[in-house]
């Protein structure tokens, strides 16, 4: 529609004309297939995004994806209206489940940009918060996966186990999910020894329950029938489509940002990255359960090794110089979240780019869906644990000619692969 909101001269609250009539052109169905709109308010997706699935009888032949309905213009808002200290609180609300991942990535990016070294204790507390978030996010996903294949008891039991983690976070940080703990320069609240042993007690019975749930579902052939051999995508394809997180680890690709580029206090943690090569949704279930147990181990190590002294929050004294660049990657429960920031004048970032893990994983979904049953669509889409509220489309606009070229997925991959 010829409006490029991220440009500097466009005001942040400009309201473009309503685009009700501009229907998004999905590419037409291959011959002999009916188009089934898996519409925005589908109970399985919990989030508005439109999959037009081309189905021939029951098998899926192709799928086109019109997403980005939850694009809220956060980057424009944070460049014009809000200053540095408020952005961690907005970054947390990019994605409801992996909130503190985005807050940590943003704070680390700004600290790298201005060269601020935060105290070791604050880094440990950040690691603990990230791992607690991984625990409750994986428990959440196991429940949702159970719900998607119709197995509601697993959904209820997994979320019953997860409830204690939420109560503890509420006691520690003041809110169940958007913790608000991680700001630029450190952490807002301290983990007192009483919190620490309460957390240890909590982790023991969460681990015990997870083992029981794992033993119960691993032998269950009914679940195997629904998840084995579903949503298969080979290892080369995974690398070509650059999928990240548990989805890639379930296909044999051994990547993990916590180990490859350690941040916060991960350099002092020993943990093993579970990699399974069953190439399908069942692999994702295994990887997530094992990662859950790994996260519990990491939290225990962090609690023991945490230095007791050190300020929680180091002040940034001199004003932040504009035009400093920094990039930081954090391992979210779904993959790798990358934040890129250019600092700007009057206490606001010049440009803040968020690339969330679901964005690459979503490119792989049409590949996974090919010639599977339509009944498996929810579990395949669910297997990448989509968090559409994080994804953002990359549109290249060359200012001189004003011509807009939407990067197709393939070009995007070439550019990112060249840099690797």
């Amino acid at each position, binding site marked *: 529609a010829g409006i490029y909101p991220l440009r500097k001269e466009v005001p942040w609250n400009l309201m473009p004309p309503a685009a009700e009539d501009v229907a998004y052109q999905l590419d037409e169905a291959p011959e002999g297939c009916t188009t089934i709109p898996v519409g925005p308010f589908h109970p399985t997706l919990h989030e508005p995004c439109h999959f037009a699935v081309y189905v021939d009888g029951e098998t899926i032949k192709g799928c086109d994806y019109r997403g980005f309905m939850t694009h809220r213009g956060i980057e424009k808002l944070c460049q014009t*209206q*809000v200053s540095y*200290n*408020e*952005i961690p*609180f*907005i970054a947390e*609300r990019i994605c409801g489940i992996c909130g503190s991942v985005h807050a940590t990535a943003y704070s680390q990016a700004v600290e790298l940009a201005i060269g601020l070294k935060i105290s070791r204790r604050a880094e440990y507390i950040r690691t603990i918060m990230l791992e607690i978030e991984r625990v409750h996010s994986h428990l959440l996903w196991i429940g949702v996966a159970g719900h998607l294949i119709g197995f509601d*008891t697993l959904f209820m*039991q997994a979320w*019953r186990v997860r409830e204690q983690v939420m109560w503890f976070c*509420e*006691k*520690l*940080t*003041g*809110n169940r999910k*958007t913790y*608000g703990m991680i700001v630029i320069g450190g952490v*807002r*609240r301290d983990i007192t020894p009483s919190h620490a042993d309460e957390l240890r007690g909590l982790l023991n019975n969460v681990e015990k329950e997870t083992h*029981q*749930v794992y*033993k*119960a*579902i691993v*032998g*269950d*052939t*009914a679940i195997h029938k629904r998840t084995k051999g579903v949503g298969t995508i080979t290892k080369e394809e995974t690398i070509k489509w650059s999928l990240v997180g548990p989805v890639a680890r379930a296909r044999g690709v051994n990547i993990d940002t916590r180990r490859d580029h350690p941040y916060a206090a991960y350099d002092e943690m020993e943990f093993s990255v579970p990699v399974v090569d069953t190439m399908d949704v069942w692999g994702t279930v295994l990887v997530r359960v094992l990662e859950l147990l790994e996260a519990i181990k990491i939290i225990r190590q962090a609690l023991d090794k945490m230095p007791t002294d050190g300020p929680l929050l180091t002040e940034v004294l001199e004003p932040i110089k504009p035009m400093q660049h920094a990039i930081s990657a954090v391992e979210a429960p779904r993959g790798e979240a990358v934040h890129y920031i250019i600092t700007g004048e009057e206490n606001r970032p010049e440009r803040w780019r968020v690339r969330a893990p679901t964005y690459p994983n979503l490119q792989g979904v049409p590949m996974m869906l090919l010639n599977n049953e339509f009944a498996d669509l929810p579990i395949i889409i669910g297997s990448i644990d989509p968090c559409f509220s994080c994804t953002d489309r990359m549109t290249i606009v060359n200012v001189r000619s004003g011509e807009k070229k939407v990067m197709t997925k393939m070009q995007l991959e070439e550019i990112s692969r060249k840099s690797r």
Partner: protein
Amino acid sequence: MWLTSKIKQAIYVLTKGTVTLPYPFSPHPAPDTFRGAPHWDHHKCVGCGGCADHCSARCILIRDVCQEVRIMLYEGSRCTYCGRCADVCPEKAITTTTQFELATDSKEDITERLELFMLTCQRCGRCFDMETKNLIDKMELKGFKYDNLEARALIPVITEHFDMKTYQKTESFSRPKKVGE
């Protein structure tokens, strides 16, 4: 195979028993460190606007009706309960209560409105700010004091640490007759 895992699941599930909380009929309070709805204490609040500046949801609005009165409106409908205003307030006037049952049928219910009496200077009527940044106050700190607004003449005056020499000097001081003397 299938039957054994089903029995295992059934046993695991039945040993847990029902855990539903009788919530609306018996209270389930939030922990005291909970960040609920913020509450302003108008006795302590000096109307400095620090919270309005630092609110990430920009839902604290300030308006100066006239020199004496400043109105602060907390628009609860957009608040994201991050507790930032409570941290930033210099007078600790804002406390995040543990109130989370905020369901209403009209948006005005969750707003808080403060009308603050801003102190103004008796003579010029402008808002008085005990800050020490403007030039005149800086001069004052160095020991000068202007006697009246019109002439704006600066006369040396003894500072806190009193010493007799400067005292004698001021005895013989005479006002400059012409400006620039």
